[in-house]
Structure formats: structure tokens, C-alpha cells
């Protein structure tokens, strides 16, 4: 649906894209995640033919976007929900886009209804809240009934109700068999939404994996142990002796890796070491993501401070 391969782009001395490659498959929501400045928006602009890459290709339905005759019937996109002429009504905003693709005005009413904007269709878009603008942007992306959709930070600035709406909507679009690419700088926003995730940093792909596999690797069997001040050092010694790695989180807490929770309980009970609580830690998507991007963020911070100096 959307295939990006080997994209490179420099803005002056700054490398925005450094060999970005991935594919967006139909029937699922693909999260496009990375810290700010990782190249997500640049990649999306290149896919839409707005920015020209120095190298590499981005294909939509097997062709460069610029060569599509009715592009919005192949790929619907929402880059910036605020990109509106404030005096133009929501309906007229959709109408000119529809006319550019040769679509009838009936399509406009259909997508307005789908986005829940019928009641405000004849109001100037300049007075819309961010949430309503996002809905209008989604409506515009759906005008051409495209098999692929691409949304840049659609959750930004949305209220909880809007986020729920957006998640359901994205899931629904994927369930219809569309390829959906959603960027975010917060992995947590994609929890329960994305099926697949492309994690990027420093202009290239760090991980391209489905969510289930990512969570599995990140979980990595960490155990948190809380015990009294008198016994905590003993417990640490016993566990280390069995090959676990132990770190002291605070005065009464240890984080243990390398041993499953059941083994820790058995060991401490057998040795008669008292403890207050043992909990097996379940990794969040956010933690998995932070782990993956740590290198990229550190690199960025380091180069940033060099540049500042």
C-alpha cells in the first residue's frame, strides 16, 4: 500500500532522513513512532510528494504519489488539522477537495456524517475546536474512499473523548481493510490502537515489529521485591548468588531480573529471608518504546549540547 525505501534527506547540515525504509500493510493500524525530530513528518511529506528526497523512493499503490491522477482516491492524509481557510465553512472545505478529485458533493455529505460534523457543516472552520478540526481532517482524508490513510499526530491536543473517538475510528478503518499509518511521539497513545509499529529515531527505522512481539521482548521478566531494611541486603545477596541481577531502587525496594517471580519466592522462603511483597512487572508499550529509542534520544541530546557549545 505504502512502501518507503531508502529515503535520505538533508536540510543543510541536519540529516532528517537517513535510509528510512518500511511498508504499511492493509487491514491494520501501523504506528509510526519516534521522538520529535526523528523524521516522521518529513517521511510523510515525502510520501505525499510535498518534499523531494535526496535519495530513495516512496510509493503509494506502487506509484510515486505525484504521478497519481486522483491521489486522494489512493491515499487520504491528514498532516495538519489547522491547515484551513478560517472563513470557509467545513462543507465548502470538503467541497473543493471533492471537486479536485472529480467527486460528487454527495461524498461530502457522506464523510461529514461519518465524522459526526453534519450539524456544524455550514459553520466557518476557523471557529472549530481542535477536536472538530481533527474530525474535519479525517473527513477530508476519507473523501476519496482511499485504501490507505496517513495521519500525522492525530491525537495531539485532543480531549479524552476525542482520543477514544479517534481510536475507535482508526480501528474501524483498519477493519475495513485499509492500510492506516498513524504517527505519534507518544507510544502510549497507540496502546490498544496499533497492530504494528515502526519505531524511528535519527531518521531511520529502529524497530519494525508487531505490538505483541514488542511487548514480549520488553517484558523481559522483571520482578520487584519489597522487604524490611534488615533483610533487604540478605535478600539481594541470596538472589545474586543464584545468578539474578539485582538493583536497589530505593531503601526498601529491589528490582530483580534474570529470575522469574516464582523462583524468587521459593528461594527466599527456603532461605528464611522475610519479605513484604513480590510483584511481577508487566512492561508497558511506553517502556518498550523508551528502551528502543534510548540510544537515539541520547545521541540527539549529545549532539544538541555540542551544537549549543
Amino acid at each position, binding site marked *: 500500500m505504502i512502501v518507503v525505501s531508502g529515503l535520505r534527506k538533508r536540510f543543510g547540515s541536519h540529516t532528517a532522513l537517513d535510509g528510512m525504509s518500511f511498508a504499511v500493510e492493509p487491514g491494520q493500524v501501523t504506528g509510526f513512532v519516534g521522538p520529535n525530530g526523528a523524521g516522521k513528518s518529513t517521511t510523510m*511529506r515525502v510520501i*505525499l*510528494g*510535498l*518534499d*523531494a528526497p535526496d535519495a530513495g523512493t516512496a510509493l503509494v499503490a506502487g506509484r510515486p*504519489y*505525484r*504521478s*497519481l*491522477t486522483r*491521489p*486522494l482516491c489512493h491515499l487520504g*492524509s491528514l*498532516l*495538519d488539522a*489547522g*491547515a*484551513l*481557510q*478560517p*472563513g*470557509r*465553512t467545513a462543507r*465548502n*472545505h470538503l*467541497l*473543493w*477537495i471533492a*471537486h*479536485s*478529485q*472529480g467527486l460528487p458533493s454527495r461524498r461530502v455529505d457522506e464523510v461529514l456524517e461519518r465524522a459526526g460534523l453534519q450539524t456544524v457543516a455550514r459553520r466557518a472552520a476557523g471557529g472549530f475546536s481542535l477536536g472538530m478540526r481533527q474530525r474535519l481532517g479525517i473527513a*477530508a482524508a476519507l473523501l476519496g474512499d482511499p485504501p490507505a490513510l496517513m495521519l500525522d499526530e492525530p491525537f495531539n491536543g485532543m480531549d479524552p473523548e476525542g482520543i477514544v473517538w479517534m481510536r475507535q475510528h482508526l480501528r474501524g478503518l483498519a477493519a475495513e481493510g485499509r492500510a492506516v499509518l498513524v504517527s505519534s511521539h507518544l507510544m502510549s497513545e497507540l496502546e490498544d490502537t496499533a497492530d504494528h509499529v515502526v519505531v524511528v529515531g535519527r531518521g531511520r527505522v529502529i524497530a519494525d515489529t508487531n505490538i505483541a512481539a514488542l511487548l514480549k521482548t520488553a517484558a523481559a521478566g522483571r520482578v520487584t521485591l519489597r522487604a524490611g531494611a534488615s533483610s533487604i541486603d540478605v535478600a539481594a545477596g541470596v538472589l545474586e548468588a543464584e545468578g539474578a541481577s539485582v538493583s536497589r531502587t530505593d531503601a526498601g525496594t529491589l528490582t530483580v531480573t534474570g529470575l522469574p517471580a516464582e523462583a524468587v519466592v521459593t528461594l527466599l522462603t527456603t532461605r528464611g529471608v522475610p519479605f513484604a511483597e513480590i510483584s511481577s512487572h508487566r512492561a508497558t508499550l511506553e517502556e518498550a518504546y523508551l528502551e528502543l529509542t534510548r540510544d537515539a534520544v541520547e545521541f540527539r541530546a549529545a549532539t544538541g549540547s555540542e551544537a549549543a557549545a
Partner: protein
Amino acid sequence: MSAFARLVHAEWTKFRTVRGWLIGMAAAAAAIVGLGLFPGMEGTCGSGCGLPVGPGGEEVTDVFTFVHRPLAGDGTITVRVASLTGELPPDGPGKEPQPGLVPWAKAGLIVRSGTKQGATYAAVMVTGAHGVRLQHDYVHDRAGKPGGVSESAPRWLRLTRAGDVVTALESADGTSWTGVGTVRLKDLPATAEVGLFVTSPMFVEGIGAAGASSAPSLATAGFDHLTTTGGWQSATWTTERIGGTSDEHPIGGGPPPGPAAGDASGGSRAPAGGQAPGAEQTGDGFTVSGSGDIAPAVAGAAGLGTTISQTLVGTFAGLVFVVVVGAMTMTGEYRRGLIRTSLAAAPRRGAALAAKATVLGAVTFVVGVAAAAVVVTIGPGLLRDNGVYVHPVSTATELRVIAGTGALLAVAAVLALAFGVLLRRGTTAVTLAFVATVLPYLLSMTVLPVAAGAWLLRVTPAAAFAIQQSTPQYAQVEGLYTPANGFFPLTPWSGLAVLLAWATVGLAFAAYRFRRRDV
């Protein structure tokens, strides 16, 4: 629907759904109509105002002193112009007239169908500063030998009528003759009025770009060695002031020597001085004084009234609104990031820009044509009701001025659009468009010296205002051919072509940048 037609449809939907653009276009039309129909211009010209019309249908000035005899059939008249002197208006109130000749003071021989103003004619003459000329039917002018008349160098002139062909000759000594030219007057009757004439046009001075003063001048020629051959009907010469009026003879002058003919019209007032138009017989000739002109009538300060061009003075104000809308339709998209939505919908950028230019140009053209049509159809009537004389023009000229005004606005809007693409910022693009199109016009209409203003109106996009010129400029008529009087340095179509060239180059450059730039 083709891909381009879809884009044009989308751009039209975009344009009509922003109230600001519609208001801008309505304001442009209102400025053109408002300044055209409510100029507060008043004059003293009643229903009797009007100019005689020449054989070609054009308005003419036909005022001169005529010493004539009827000639039946073919014949020849020869005369020596021994002297040509004149009076210019005083250079201040209460002062005496100064001696001198205006460049187009005329003295010579003329053959006419009659004494009615606007009659077909051919004349060979000595002029104040343009040598010997052969002129006919008001608008046609051919040069003979240069030089004036002095006592040491008199000029001989000869006019021969043979059928409808009139031949003019000149000589320095009355023996050796040189042809000046031949003209065919197809409407010359069998019996024509032939004789001597003297006239002297208004003395015109420009004051800055817009101001002007004009006053009558007088010329006096000493004719001698007058001889005629052929079918001359009467032995006596009749002196007549064609186009003169009896109540206008100057202080200290006698009554006009001949019966006054013609109706009241511009340019016939005689200068306030010691001499008066008239003729006095001498030994073998006449001394003839005259004031006026035999020439096409020219509008403006030197002439009588105004032209439809001047009713369209509001065009510049309309242009201000039009270039603002033109630039902002593009810079507004940049400002809000809407350009990305536009180019996602229409990724072929050259076509996208062409569609935008097409819609903007078409809308502006329609608005401009409508506004100009209202002004040109209604404006002259209102001015005439206020007593202002408006030079009539042909329907073709009206159509050219109306359509040209629309084209001027449309092409300027597209140029502003190109500036919008190149600069991407509303304030800079609008400023540049204003400086390129409106400012040169305003400067040359107001404060700039005529030469500097003319230069601006040749090279800048404002050259296109020439399309609004409605009355022609004549080399043989001294006039204030300034933009403020409705005259432009370029011909109408070449002026429009200058703007078109600017817009074409601007749009091509804009398209080049637009296609390569990241947005």
C-alpha cells in the same frame, strides 16, 4: 472531466467560498464604477457643444482665415510666402503678447470642397517649426523640405488640382520646383474653394504631470506673387474666418474682415493683442492673420473636453484590490499550511498553479469588464449632463477599452499571484505587486516629470494602462500627450503586451520555483 478541468473547478470552489476574495472583487468593481460615475466633474458645455467631423468621421478643429475664390475644374495657384511672424500669449496677466510662432503655425495654399467646417481638403503650407508640409483631410500629414520663412529666404508654394488629384510643389526661387506630394480627394466637387490660409494653434504649456495651461496664438503671413491659372470663376477674393465668431475679436482689433462661418467650437478665440485674424490686400498678394488649426481634434488640456479613458480613472483603485486578492489567494494558503492540502489533492504543481491563475484571471476579467462597461456606457452621459464635453469614440474603441480594462486587471492579478508564489508572504507579495503595477501609474499621473513618467509607463507592468487610451495622438498637433490627459507612451496593445510579458515571465519563474520547492 479532464484532470485540469477538475482543478479549475476546485479552484473556483475555493475562490467563491472565501468571503474576503468576493468582497475584494466587489470592492474593485465598486472603486472603478464609483470613481468613474461620481467624479464631481463639471463643465459649461451645453447641448450645443460639439466639434465638426472630418471626412474620416473623426472630430476635427477647422478654424482658420481663408482668402479664397471658387475654382471650377482644374487649375493651379502659386504664391510666395515672404514672411511668417506671430504672437504668443503674454506670460502673465496684464502683460503684452510676445512675438513668436508656435511650431505648428500654418500659412499656405488650400483646396477645399467648401467653407463648411470639416470639409475635405488638401493644403501645402509653411509651418512655424516643421518646414513645408502637405496635409489633407485633417489626419494626414507629409513633410516637405525643412526650414522656416524669412525675408532672405522666402518660400514658394504651388497647388494644382487635376480631377480628384491635388499636387503640391515648393520652391526657393519660383523657378526651380520640387514636388512635396500628391493626394487624391475622392469627394472633392467639380467646383472647389481654393486660396490662401493662415492659422495658428493654441499655445500649450504643461505644468507638471497633470497641470496645463493653454492660450490662443496668432500667425501673420505676407503672401505675394499670387498667380492663378485654370478655371477660376470670380475675379475677387473673399476673406472669411472659418470657425471664427464675431464677438471674439481682440481688443484694439477691427471687426473681422469676412463673415463669420461655422458654429461655436473650441480653439477659435483670438489672442488678446494688437493684431487680429483677418486679411489685407497688398500689391500682388495678401497679408493674412489667423488663429486656430486645421487638424484632428485632440482631447485633454489642450483640447476641449475629456475622454472615456478619463472616466476609467478608478481602474488604479480597482487594481489595488485586485492585486491584493491575487497575491493573497496564494500567500493565504502558505500562511495556514493549506498549500499542503492543495498539493496533496493536486500533486502536479504546474497544473495546480495554472488552474489557480485561470480562475483568478477569469474572475478578475469578468469583474473588470463588467465595471468598465458600466462606466463607459453610463459615465459619458453623466458627464455630458454636468456640462462636460466627452469626445465620442467608435464602438470598436469602446469595446477595446472595456475588454482591455478587464484584461489589464486580470493579467495584473495573475502577476500578483506569481509574486505570491515566489515570496510566499502576503505583505511582501502585495507590496511588490502594488509597486510594480499601481505605483508607476500613480507617480506618472501626479508628481513625476513627463519624461520619467513616460519611461515608467513603457517598462513597468503599468504600461498596460495604455489599453485605456481612447483618442489617438497626432504628431502634427501640439498637445499635452500625458497620461493625465488620457495619452500613454505606448500604443494600447503594446502596452498590454508589456504587462503580459511581465506576467508570463513572472508566472513561468513562479512555476519553476513552485515545482522544485519543498512545501
